[in-house]
């Protein structure tokens, strides 16, 4: 192929990925089946039936209980971060891959994949040593990303993005050699991803496949105000997001007027707290927690909030200029002024010019 043809192919890939409607998923199973059969064939493996998981959790459960076939070590050698093949370090390859990822909502799916991988699990904890989230390790702890399930996952969105990156690589230089698996291991996954395939695992007797979920976006961020932002039509494993922040289901499904502003006091994640304030409204938060203003400076206020347990504590109220919403953050009891609270927050005497 000539450079012009590679350019046209890359453009075509991007066009097809951009045309995907993230909110609806219609799976073209026959087309995907052909792609996967050819893919297996390129590794000398026989075709095998495809089992479609109903949702992310179902897919992970099935994969974890299967004998997975490890073929990824026959693919490219990647850098330490596992993102760029060692012989494809060129900026054109990286930029094109990222553009293709963004075009097909691959970035959001990567976030979702991180959630599906889950948290580490402390194994074989004695009943006597359970202390909630302060439970200490008892030797073994899982590292989700390094388990066989996630070491052997195949990602159609990633392969599709790499197909575009290969085109960029080929057209950006001369006397370059096309990836030997381009025709069977990368390019066909553009069509497969468009046809609804996201992740798959090859086992000794079947392929476990997971479709692209239905994804609700607002300003390119995962966001849905009245239900899950990520869901599989047949599944129960849903994910709730507000403005790109993964939040508890109750925060999304409870109408703002019924949300207890004191939820804020129990939430330790700063981004989730921001979304609680955004949804409930700063006025209701201040009213419910009987806020008393101790000091004010510019967009900042130092509030004394009633923690509803017999204590009052100072909180710094500030406006986040980048998203235009208010944010509340606990500060030490000793803080009596905005300046002191800012100094504690920033470990300096200077107020921040921009809060992020």
């Amino acid at each position, binding site marked *: 192929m000539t450079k012009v043809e590679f350019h046209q192919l890359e453009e075509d890939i991007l066009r097809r990925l951009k045309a995907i409607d993230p909110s609806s998923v219609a799976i073209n199973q026959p087309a995907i089946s052909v792609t996967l059969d050819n893919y297996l064939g390129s590794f000398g493996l026989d075709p095998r039936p495809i089992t479609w998981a109903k949702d992310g959790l179902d897919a992970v459960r099935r994969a974890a209980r299967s004998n997975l076939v490890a073929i990824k070590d026959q693919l490219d050698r990647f850098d330490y971060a596992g993102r760029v093949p060692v012989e494809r370090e060129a900026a054109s390859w990286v930029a094109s891959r990222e553009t293709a990822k963004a075009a097909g909502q691959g970035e959001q799916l990567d976030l979702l994949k991180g959630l599906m991988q889950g948290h580490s*699990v402390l194994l074989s904890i*004695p009943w006597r040593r359970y202390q909630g989230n302060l439970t200490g390790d*008892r030797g073994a702890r899982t590292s989700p990303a390094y388990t066989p399930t996630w070491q052997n996952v195949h990602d159609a969105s990633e392969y599709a993005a790499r197909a575009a990156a290969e085109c960029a690589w080929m057209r950006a230089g001369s006397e370059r050699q096309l990836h030997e698996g381009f025709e069977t291991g990368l390019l066909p996954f553009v069509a497969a991803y468009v046809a609804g395939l996201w992740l798959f695992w090859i086992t000794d007797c079947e392929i476990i496949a997971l479709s692209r979920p239905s994804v609700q976006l607002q300003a390119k961020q995962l966001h849905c105000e009245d239900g899950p932002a990520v869901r599989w039509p047949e599944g129960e494993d849903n994910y709730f997001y507000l403005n790109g922040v993964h939040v508890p289901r109750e925060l999304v499904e409870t109408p703002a007027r019924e949300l207890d502003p004191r939820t804020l006091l129990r939430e330790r994640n700063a981004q989730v707290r921001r979304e609680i304030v955004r949804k409930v409204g700063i006025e209701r938060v201040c009213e419910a927690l009987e806020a008393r203003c101790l000091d004010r400076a510019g967009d900042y206020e130092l509030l004394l909030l009633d923690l509803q347990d017999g204590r009052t504590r100072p909180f710094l109220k500030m406006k986040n200029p980048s998203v235009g919403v208010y944010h509340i953050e606990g500060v030490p009891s000793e803080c009596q002024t905005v300046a002191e609270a800012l100094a504690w927050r920033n470990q300096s005497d200077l107020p921040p010019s921009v809060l992020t």
Partner: protein
Amino acid sequence: MDIDINSGEIISDCLKQYGRGKLFARTDGLQFEAQRAALRHAYLEAHPETDAQRREAILNAAITPGMTRDQVIAAWGLLEEDTRTSFGHVTEDRRVAFAYFTGIEVGTNYALYFRDETLMGVRETDELVPPHEREIDMRIAEESGTFYFYDGNDGELRGSNVDQFHMDWDTAHLHLYTVELITRSSRYRIETHLEANGALGKYEAELNRLGYTVEKAPDEVRFPLALRLLPYPQPERGAQSEGPTVPPDSDNWRVLPSSD
């Protein structure tokens, strides 16, 4: 085969609330023994606010989803010796712990699901979470104040007196903790600890009942038996952790004041 445990699976099972609205009574015949009944009454005396329905369940040695872990202990009259071979897996999401335990000896085999300290579900099952293969070494190490254990990439087990994943800034950066290699316990060491805890006689008798002599018993018989007979060191550790191992200027440090 990949036998990894997925945190999503644990959380999902916890949220299913198995056995919600049902009572699960202890049925091994020991439930109304004097010391266990005393445990029950002591709890109810200390917690007069316990609602009538739950109070009745506790008095009948029955648990139900929604109870606290302390209520479960009171209802089933769980003494330390009842839970020496109970193990579970623990994960967390947004600093909320999710866990399930099996192996509590109450007549029927149950898996108990917890969200923090609240019993979320009860499911009858014969599955057992096995102890770590070095559990006996860890229990012995606990007697010298080592309560946190980590598998190393070199195949060795290391122990610390401070939780390496939850420690305050000073402890982390002034290295106010110890880390030591946990050695494998010999038969003699285990028997010394059993003797110190007054359990050597029971140990020998039980081995004899199983058809072994103390000298000839295989490790796979010896270790589980020792685990059953060796009490957990007292007093139990308190919550040593004060905060995440992060510098004060990181995002994670800026948490709201804790409720305790």
